[in-house]
């Protein structure tokens, strides 16, 4: 335990070293366009109310877009996975959409829906939809045949089979898709704000650049990183709580 702690503390030297190097480089450059960590901390302190407000808008939109994707794509994925003929035919289309980077649809959505909240939520929902759909589809058509036999021999009804067998057995994979989708919706939420500027943290970053306040922009980035870390930690805890049985069975084999 003490060794663990020593490693954790000594490891901090790496980020500290980077910060020191960065500060030294900034001091040598002497330009406000390349602020050092000191300046960023000051900017962090003076700007945090604005940053938090804008970040809230961004996160809210990301959450709505993600929710839309969950509500539509999980049923669609199960449907495609269950009705094999339709799923097989549409598989190439899904593969094609998966290779298209989500931000590439921003200009197109802008044509249809303008730059408002609706347009951004559509973009975020699309970005979150791809991993959710792919994973739900994969999970629901690859249920182990043994499990179906178990359901049959227990004389479970159609509904009971779905609730007790199909759903839990495909849940781990759907959750993996959801984790990717959350990361993707955060990313696209910020990106869409930078390109279709109205409000939110992305717009804040753009403004900081336009007014040459690079230190404020970097402070904004620090908050984005913090939000990402917190969201990830939250997702991880929920996963451990709901899928404890899955991880329990997945102990390393060695």
């Amino acid at each position, binding site marked *: 335990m003490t060794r663990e702690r020593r*490693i*954790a503390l*000594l*490891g*901090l*030297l*790496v*980020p500290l070293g*980077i910060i020191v190097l960065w500060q030294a480089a900034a001091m040598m450059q002497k330009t406000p*366009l*390349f602020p050092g960590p000191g300046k960023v901390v000051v900017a962090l302190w003076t700007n945090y109310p604005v940053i938090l407000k804008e970040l809230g808008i961004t996160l809210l939109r990301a959450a709505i877009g993600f929710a839309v994707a969950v509500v539509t794509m999980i049923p669609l994925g199960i449907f495609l996975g269950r009705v094999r003929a339709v799923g*097989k*035919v*549409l*598989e*190439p*289309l899904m593969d*094609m*959409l998966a*290779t*298209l*980077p*989500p*931000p*590439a*649809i*921003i*200009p*197109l959505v*802008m*044509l*249809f829906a303008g730059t408002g909240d609706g347009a951004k939520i559509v973009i975020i929902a699309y970005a979150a939809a791809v991993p959710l759909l792919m994973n739900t589809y994969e999970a629901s058509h690859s249920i182990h045949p043994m499990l179906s036999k178990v359901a049959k021999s227990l004389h479970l009804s159609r509904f009971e089979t779905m609730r007790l067998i199909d759903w839990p057995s495909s849940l781990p994979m759907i959750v993996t898709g959801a984790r990717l989708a959350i*990361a993707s919706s*955060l*990313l*696209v939420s*910020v*990106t869409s704000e*930078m*390109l279709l500027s109205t409000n939110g943290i*992305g717009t804040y*970053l*753009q403004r*900081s*650049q336009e007014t*040459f306040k*690079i230190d404020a*922009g*970097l402070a*904004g*980035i620090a908050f*984005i*990183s913090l*939000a*990402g*870390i917190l*969201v*990830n930690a939250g997702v991880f805890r929920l996963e451990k709580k709901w899928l404890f049985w899955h991880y329990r069975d997945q102990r390393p084999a*060695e």
Partner: protein
Amino acid sequence: MNAALLAERLRVPICIALVLGSWQVIFALGVVPEKYFPSIPTIAVAFWQMLTDGTVISAWATTFLRALIGLVGAAVLGIALAILSDLSPVLSRGIRYVSDVLQPIPPAAFVPMAVFMLGLGTKLYAFVIILVTVWPPYLNGVAALAGVGPVQLNTGRMFGLSNWGLLWRVKLPAALPEIFTGIRYAATISLIAVIVSEMLAGRDGIGFMIFKKAFALRTPEVFGLMFLVAINGVLLNGLVNLLRRRLTGWHIGMMERPE
């Protein structure tokens, strides 16, 4: 069995026909104004015109090259970081702190801050792409290097390999398949990063071109360019797969061997 095989082969053409067909039906019904939803022939003609006048080819080459350079840089750096992490637990912990902080930041956020320092050229793209794509090869590399089994390690020691030899001849080859999984994921991210950066930097490349055409309300061209972006993804993936087959063919052979 034969019918099933035929259906398997026809899957892709049927899918394409279905998509194109329903596209044309929506177009014919006129639910969406033509300005926003052009017919397939219109898109094809516009796409062909862009191809023949040469601007698209150079924009496409620029974008693809940027993604490729970024990906190669990220793979090399990622593997280097993974090796460093394998050498010392303290370094491993330290690099992990840095990756935890940098990983959640979207590529778009770096662009406006870096423009002043790095300009609008290759440096900017290399910086942004490497900063966001280095993590999957690195994380997979760390996990894979740590997961090399004791049997393999002891066999290597038995052959009298030094620590470096062990790393180079046993651990790295054993970890390579998993690292390639990371690189494949990184390829997807690098395309996202390059498109976004081009949209924001607003000077050249396909990302910039899509926006320019969208602002000019040239919808057929926008659809055509989006198609090209998707092709880029397929190409980059194909390239990574090719390299993976060359370098880790032994592993793929083992995985696909019938039981």
